[in-house]
């Protein structure tokens, strides 16, 4: 009896395919998980090694160990503070209910809880501030970039100003912004804290530029043929911008926005330190002034959190870009 060649071949083929598949699968697993994990482990070991050898006036430089400890501490502090807050509101409600039971016309006072901001609260404030600042910057930068990209004369007028303000550090702007906000933002019922506005405007002033510059480049480098199509069709300025300019420039606009958001997040920490806006920057500054043996560890937690949030913000922008972009084949990273 002979084994039919086809059967044998199919069995062999299946075998080969599984091995190939397995190998491919292992390959991707190594690339996407094992290699980054390896990098992180090596980094942690080196960090611990170096940290062991640095002794400061506030004790040993925090290694991964202490940082882990402090992050747990910060988390439980947050939980404690939240429990206190709920307890406070419960007490207040009971007190008020009692008052109303005695006398239905009694004036009931409802006070907001004024406990100290926890680490998580400060992260929230920072995110809100950067979002507000980035929004203002985008609303100014994209239209400005489009106008400058469309008209070379306007570009020539505006370019020196852009180039002058682009390299200015947030710390230089801050005193000016603080004074201007104090002078102009005068209301009895403030919607925003002054320190919040100061930080947000400083962020906006500093993260405006990458979006402006990249939008200009994107708009100025539209394919000549497409501009000629627009001219032959005699498109109106608004249709021209909507149908041709913005879609063409979208990749460059997003490159700018991502750089802007990263800059904004970086600037924010410095701005908050000085403006005393209750965010991550203030947290670091307060811990530094506090100078306990835990301070350095807690600052290191903040450093890592700032880094991770920056990473997440950039990934979010990338996701938005993927959604908005018309070219689904483009490699975005």
């Amino acid at each position, binding site marked *: 009896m002979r084994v039919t060649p086809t059967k044998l071949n199919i069995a062999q083929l299946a075998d080969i395919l599984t091995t190939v598949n397995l190998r491919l699968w292992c390959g991707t697993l190594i690339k996407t998980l094992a290699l980054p994990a390896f990098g992180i482990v090596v980094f942690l070991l080196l960090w611990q090694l170096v940290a062991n050898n640095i002794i400061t006036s506030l004790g040993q430089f925090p290694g991964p160990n202490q940082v882990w400890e402090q992050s747990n501490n910060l988390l439980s502090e947050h939980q404690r503070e939240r429990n206190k807050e709920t307890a406070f509101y419960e007490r207040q409600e009971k007190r008020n209910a009692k008052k109303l039971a005695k006398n239905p016309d009694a004036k009931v006072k409802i006070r907001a809880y004024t406990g100290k901001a926890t680490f998580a609260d400060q992260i929230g404030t920072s995110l809100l501030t950067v979002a507000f600042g980035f929004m203002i910057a985008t609303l100014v930068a994209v239209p400005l970039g489009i106008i400058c990209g469309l008209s070379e004369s306007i570009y020539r007028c505006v370019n020196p100003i852009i180039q002058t303000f682009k390299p200015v550090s947030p710390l230089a702007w801050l005193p000016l912004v603080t004074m201007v906000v104090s002078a102009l933002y005068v209301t009895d019922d403030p919607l925003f804290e002054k320190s919040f506005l100061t930080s947000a405007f400083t962020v906006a002033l500093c993260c405006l530029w990458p979006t402006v510059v990249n939008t200009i480049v994107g708009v100025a480098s539209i394919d000549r043929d497409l501009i*000629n199509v627009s001219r*032959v*069709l*005699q498109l109106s300025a608004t249709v021209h911008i909507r149908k041709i300019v913005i879609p063409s420039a979208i990749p460059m606009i997003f490159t700018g926005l991502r750089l802007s958001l990263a800059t904004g997040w970086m600037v924010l920490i410095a701005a908050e330190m000085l403006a005393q806006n209750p965010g991550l920057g203030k947290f670091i500054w307060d811990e530094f002034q506090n100078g306990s043996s835990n301070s350095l560890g807690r600052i290191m937690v903040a450093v890592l959190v700032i880094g991770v949030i920056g990473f997440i913000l950039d990934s979010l922008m990338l996701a938005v870009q993927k959604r908005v972009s018309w*070219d689904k084949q483009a490699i975005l990273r």
Partner: protein
Amino acid sequence: MKNNYLEISQVGIEFPTDGEPFRALQNVDLGIAKGEFISLIGHSGCGKSTVLNIVAGLYEATQGGVILEGREVDEPGPDRAVVFQNHALLPWLTVYQNVELAVKCVFRKSKTKAEMRDWIEHNLSLVHMNHAMHKLPGELSGGMKQRVGIARCLAMQPKVLLMDEPFGALDALTRAHLQDSLMDIQQQLGNTVIMITHDVDEAVLLSDRIVMMTNGPAASIGEVLQVDLPRPRDRVVLADDPAFNHYRQQVLRFLYEKQKNPAAKKVEAA
């Protein structure tokens, strides 16, 4: 020659450079009748595209001018639709939307929404692209993109259809298909066409007249060849036709004997 539909009259153009202005064209004089198919042929750099761009209104002539149906051309407009060599479709719009953009510009006031939709579909079926209406240009082959580019222009119902090496970027088979389609459409609709080409066979096959241009700078019209082949023309039959081959030879003689390629001339001199 007073009753020409399109009159290119004593056109010359100079481009500013750092030193002396560069004179690209001089004394280009050509009258075109309604429904005529004209090819412009010449070596690269001789200013064929410049002539086309002046007729389109994309460039402004420094001497002379262009008159279309009694009106001077002074800006680009949809009555002089341009088919670009690289299709120039908007890559973020589907085939349908690309044509729609043009149709909306031209027929905003004169057609209802339903009429516009029918008109877009009609034009896409003229170029046999109605099966891919909702695809993006990136999903189409080069020949298909160029078909859509042609449909976009036909849909504008231009007085003159200007084609800038429309089939230059395509392979020979695809080019032949598109040439046949173009001949059919032109036969049906009677468009007035000016087409730039490098391809002698293409010029003879498609044109009523072939305009041969001299080499630049200061290029002008060298000779004009009337092609009196009966239509419809069949490329296979014509391949063996003495008249067809005679026309081919005349164009070739102009290009390779009377107006040698400027690059080739340099090699000989060296």
